[in-house]
């Protein structure tokens, strides 16, 4: 027997109590509600993806459409399926693509790291700010979304270019004598990505930090931790779910980012989104472009699945706690 501290184990919620409402709706009602998003994903995500995948197995040809059919009747008798892996071999054979993939991952990784370093203190500051201004600060974080993404990236050109705001300011206060070459370098891409995706880092971090029980920090200090150590021992480990969510939300779209490297990065910034665009519109090689897209998806599916697995575990844990 548990020494005195026992008490009855928590009762499991009766399974029928939650099911009553859905039973009244009937299985049809519940099925319908679930079917809508499934149908949406099927129509606008899976079907286009299958088409892209199909094209990736075709071969380039001059004509309309600019690729060979996958399935074809030969002599009106045989159904011929012609699957070509040439585009994939090409993809992995050509250093350009491999380099573009790795460079995309690198840029996305470094940007995510900076977004985290920048976003964490901001989220922390908002979560610990006075309740009356907290919503105002959150509003400030999401305010840029009111403006078009494209316009905001263009604005960075105005800031970063040689006679732009930043250089003029730095020269005016006398820190530098000659303008810094930022635009059309990878640094500009980092700045652009970190800027554009920072809210996606801040919001999940904020929501975990805001939920945190402040008495935990007091307990840590009471037991002998200085504030900084209490942060490392308590706040940081407890905000890991927010860190993971924020990093995924920044990393995944950053890998495939096209607009920012195209506008800010200049010609020699190698990112997979740019390569894909060039393949489609400059080379008009649809099969190769499709193969790039499929490969990118496979690259990204792995971290997404890791993330989902992590979330599922967190939820299971939270359920146990509740």
């Amino acid at each position, binding site marked *: 027997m548990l020494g005195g*501290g026992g*008490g009855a184990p928590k009762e499991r919620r009766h399974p029928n109590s939650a099911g009553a409402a859905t039973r009244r709706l009937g299985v049809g009602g519940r099925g319908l509600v679930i079917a809508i998003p499934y149908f949406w994903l099927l129509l606008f995500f899976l079907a286009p993806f299958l088409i892209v995948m199909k094209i990736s197995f075709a071969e380039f040809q001059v004509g309309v459409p600019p690729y060979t059919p996958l399935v074809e009747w030969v002599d009106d008798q045989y159904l011929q399926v012609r699957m070509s892996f040439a585009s994939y071999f090409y993809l992995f054979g050509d250093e350009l693509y491999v380099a573009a993939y790795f460079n995309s991952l690198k840029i996305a990784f470094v940007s995510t790291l900076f977004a985290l370093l920048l976003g964490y203190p901001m989220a922390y500051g908002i979560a610990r700010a006075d309740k009356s201004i907290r919503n105002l600060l959150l509003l400030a974080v999401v305010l840029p979304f009111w403006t078009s993404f494209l316009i905001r990236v263009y604005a960075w050109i105005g800031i970063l270019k040689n006679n732009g705001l930043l250089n003029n300011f730095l020269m005016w206060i006398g820190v530098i004598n000659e303008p810094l070459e930022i635009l059309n370098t990878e640094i500009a891409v980092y700045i652009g990505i970190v800027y554009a995706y920072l809210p996606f880092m801040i919001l999940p971090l904020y929501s975990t930090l805001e939920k945190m*029980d402040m008495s*935990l920090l007091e307990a840590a*200090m009471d*037991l002998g931790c200085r504030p900084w*150590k209490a942060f490392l021992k*308590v706040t940081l480990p407890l905000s890991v779910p927010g860190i993971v969510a924020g990093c995924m939300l920044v990393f995944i779209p950053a890998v495939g980012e096209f607009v920012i490297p195209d506008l800010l990065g200049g010609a020699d910034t190698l990112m997979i989104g740019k390569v894909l665009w060039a393949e489609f519109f400059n080379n008009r090689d649809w099969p190769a472009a499709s193969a790039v897209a499929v490969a990118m998806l496979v690259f990204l599916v792995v971290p997404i699945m890791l993330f989902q697995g992590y979330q599922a575990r967190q939820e299971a844990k939270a359920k146990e706690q509740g």
Partner: protein
Amino acid sequence: MSQQARSLQDQVARTEKGEASDLLKPLIQIEGVTKSFGDFVAVNNVSLTIYQGELFSLLGGSGCGKTTLLRMLAGFETPTSGRILIDGQDMTRVPPYERPVNMMFQSYALFPHMTVEQNVAFGLKQDGLPRDQVRQRVAEMLDLVELGHLGRRKPHELSGGQRQRVALARALAKRPKVLLLDEPLGALDKKLRERTQLELVNIQENLGITFVVVTHDQEEAMTMSTRVAIMNQGRILQVDTPHAMYEYPNTRFVAEFFGSVNIFEGPLLEDEPGHVVIGCPDLSVPIYVGHGISSREGATVYAAVRPEKIALSKEPPADATYNTATGVVEDIVYLGGESTYLVRLDSGRLVRVDLQNQTRSSEPELTWHDRVHVSWEHSNVVVVTS
């Protein structure tokens, strides 16, 4: 209450009067402490001395300042003015991580990402204690609260009572000079609470660590404490042993907060050193009180009589010159061990009387609409002036 606690109470009383040769050393000295938040004064000029080995309760309703006072002892709040000394050292502005006190939080504040063992070891590791000593102390603490077998569980895998024990073990692990407990039993159900009260007292006496407990529960304070301070609106109204607090409340508020009471209001008719007489419009006869008070004749005073100290009978009392009245039984509340009778006096005033149920008879001697006489001994009344 143990005999040990009782003798400590006597020693504290002697020390306070300054008459003993074995004077106790004050462990906590709160000197004129005030804490305001903006315009709101949470703690108002409080002075208090707590001695080594005491189990001291701060009792009061919500918002009375008891938790703020406790948090100032822990170092989470800094007094606006005044001083706090612990073991002779000025702690007023010392941060919580440098104080020789530990706190058990109302919410327990167990670290959810650590096991029970890691929670208990947390403070010891901050002190840089060698590993084997940490392990030994953790095992010791978990044995103390009888949770040795659950060391590897996470807090969310424990019941409320077990969590409470982990919180206690964690707070005691560093062997603080003072343990501060914020509503330590507030989250437990009644049965578990009663058992835990006694266990907490046992642990406290065995370890000899001074406990300062914040509670809103008058019974809890009465069961556990060597001394109690009652707070209201940021001020301390009375500091006393539970017995003295109950039998000799110094204000109307204390009398009403610390147990139930019937208060009779009236002018002071006779003011002698050995007794006073109060005219009371609620009764047909005046109230005779067997002790003197320092007030002037004619002043309005309050006579407080505890419900269990009132006798109820169908026959008139032998001496009907003082302290009696007639009325009708209006309501009876059966509480198992005792029953509460609400008697409507002829003046219209309602009086509460508690009687022991000494037999199992379902037909009590007194029943609804019975005409009864209420009366009490003059030694069972206490006069409060405010």
